[in-house]
């Protein structure tokens, strides 16, 4: 118990990793359970953020270089591109099918 309190008192690599792990699991949960395509998208954003935390944490505590941060920037770039495309697709689907429920979408054309 004493050890645990000590551990809590000195936030380090493990703490960030555990936060990121929980964030990741939450994102996966959103992807798995939600039926709205936009909610799925939000879940993906959570997962990406969790991954970014990992990158930066390792870059800060283990390699001690900035490579992790650069990779994180690329992740953000790709997340932006992905969000734009995904939302465009969602809008298009909504126009064609009048729903954004991923379970009801089972064809690529109307």
């Amino acid at each position, binding site marked *: 118990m004493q050890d645990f309190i000590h551990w809590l008192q000195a936030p380090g690599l493990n703490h960030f990793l555990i936060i990121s792990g929980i964030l990741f699991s939450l994102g*996966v949960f959103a*992807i*798995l*359970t939600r039926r709205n395509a936009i909610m799925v998208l939000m879940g993906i954003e959570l997962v990406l953020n969790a991954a970014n935390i990992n990158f930066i944490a390792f870059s800060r505590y283990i390699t001690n270089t900035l490579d992790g941060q650069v990779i994180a920037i690329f992740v953000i770039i790709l997340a932006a591109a992905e969000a734009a495309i995904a939302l465009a697709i969602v809008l298009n689907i909504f126009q064609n099918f009048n729903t954004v429920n*991923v*379970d009801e979408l*089972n064809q690529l054309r109307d």
Partner: protein
Amino acid sequence: MSPETIIQLSVVILLLPLLGFTLLIFFNKRLPRQGDWLETGILFLALALSLVVFAVKMVSYRHETFQATFTWVNFGNVPGFGPMKLELGIMVDNLVAIMLVVVNVVSALVHLFSIGYMHGDVRYGRYFAYLGIFTFSMLGIVITNNFWMMYVFWELVGLSSYLLIGHWFEKKSASDAAKKAFVVNRVGDIGMFTGIMILFATFHTFTFSTIFESMQSGNIPLGSEAWLTAAGILIFCGAIGKSAQFPLHVWLPDAMEGPTPVSALIHAATMVAAGVYLIARAFPMMTADALMFIAYIGAITAFISATIAIAQNDIKKVLAYSTVSQLGYMVMGLGVGAYTAGFFHLVTHAMFKAGLFLGSGSVIHAMHHALHHAGDHHTDPQDIRNMGGLRSKMPITFWTFLIYTLAISGIPFTSGFLSKDEILAGTLAFGSLTGHKIIPIIGFFVAGLTAFYMFRLVIVVFFGEHNDHHRIEAVRESPKTMTIPLMVFAALSFFAFYSPNPFGAASGWFFDAIHRPESVVPLAVAAVGIETFEEALHHSHSLAMILSLTVAGLGILIAFTTYYWKKISADAVADKLKPLHTFFLNKWYFDEFYEWMFVGGTKGLARAYAWFDNRIIDGIVNGVGSWTKAITLGTRQNWEEGSIASIFYLGITGVISLYVGWIAGAAMMPFGASLGTMVGYGMLGLAVAGLTFFLFYVGVGGFDNSIVDGLVNATAYLAGFLGLLTRRVQTGKVQTYLAFVILGVMVFFLWFR
């Protein structure tokens, strides 16, 4: 100009035609005039650059070789092979500088000529694009410094020649000819590839200079001189294919189906010259035996195709066989060791043969238009029997054609005389040094034949009476774009470009720039050394000149007596030598022989296999099946009927089984088997017999129904059950699959933790 600049300029020269190809193949429809000016302009630019390279190389760096190499792929140390890496590189020496100019001159002028000749063609732009990639691949062969890149460009030449020969692919003969050229060339290329791989397996590099250096220090393939000879001959196989040497010469005459400027490009200066160039490049590694083989192949080719050329009536076919014959000359020249002369003939021949082809193109073009004008679609515009008296109608074509003919016949003051004379002197020297007198004899005989059939062509086409006055009236001289290349080539057929002395090439710049390279093969298998050869060459020079002039004069004389003064009737002679004439007319029946031998052979083999499959294999399978069925059915029925015969049969089976077991046991005796073993085998036989009785007792059908079918049904049931089970997992929902992915990832995590 520094060496770096020369290398860079050469790379630019190499890439310019590729640029033209890339632009034209995509945009020819959008460019004005379908882009012919673009491609032609690019080629003239390349020509100008190559002239610069050539001039600088000749003036400032005549005895140096420039190379630039970089490692493209490095595989490191490959197990079972050793260090392996692929290097790309280019090299500029005198050979390359000269070839660059030759290729670009011919290509540029052919481009110019094509503007007139191909006017109004359906695929006009694409035609120019193909010319571009052809030139690119040829320049690639010339400029590399290693076998590997050479092979790549070699195949590219094969491909682009296929595209060009098959340009008018709507015509079946044209597409067939393209396929034939492609396939026949592959046959030679297999040999070349094998040869290159022999070298690569030994030296672990493709670069010429590295291979030769290593060879010079006594390192030869597999430590055996026989393999060295084999490698040399195999690499020469590539040249046999590309340079149309016997026995793979059959593609070249058929390739005349392509547009005539293409024939000029492919068959005069580029593709067929690639083979000769390859021999020149690989010359240092050729053993005496390999060179002997090369010399004989060249001589045989020269002879065969010269005899065929005599009997042909199609203007392009005559030129095609004369090309094959002249290529035979070059190969023979290199083979006998007259390296410079062989290569020199390549250069001079490129000029006048390109001219001859373009001249024939001009004639065909004019004939075609005249026939078209007259509404005649049946007469063949390429048949020389339909021509005659074109001299006055097409003066420029006639005079230039005459100059080329003089050059190819080896008349003094022409370039052809210089190179041919040197080759013939080389064969004489070779004959006196090695005792192979047949080679010079063939050489001089073919020289006479060449003069004869070329003058026959000139006389029949341009002199004499018009056999159809009306048709000839409509013939017009070709446009400027076509006559200018003719004049340029005619000018380049004079001696002055190559040597100041019209009777000896040795004093010219060419013989100063190109020297026979020192052989790198072990002394025991090397050809006659350079000094000895030069000595013999010196002695035979005047004899060669006199002899070659005599035979050429004789050939021309006979041609004039036969076709101009008509003192000898050609038809009468042909009639008298009917079998021989038919033999020549049908090209020695090579095509028919190949058809019978390879096409027919393959078909026959396929038929034999089919028969074997249908009769023997299927027979055994079906036989076993029906036999088993018959026995089981028969015995079972008989058993049920209580037939004596079936009981007797079963008894026999049991006895045989016992006996076989006994014999098997006995056979084991000499190998130390004990009595027990023997008894054991007997028991085994007894068991087999018992099983047989049991099977018949329960009935084979019963076994089949209960056990075999039971197993099958159980399997099917199991499969169905498993299918049902797994189908539940396949929900078709993406989230389910994602869940499985996550589970999988977790397994990995726990596994590798």
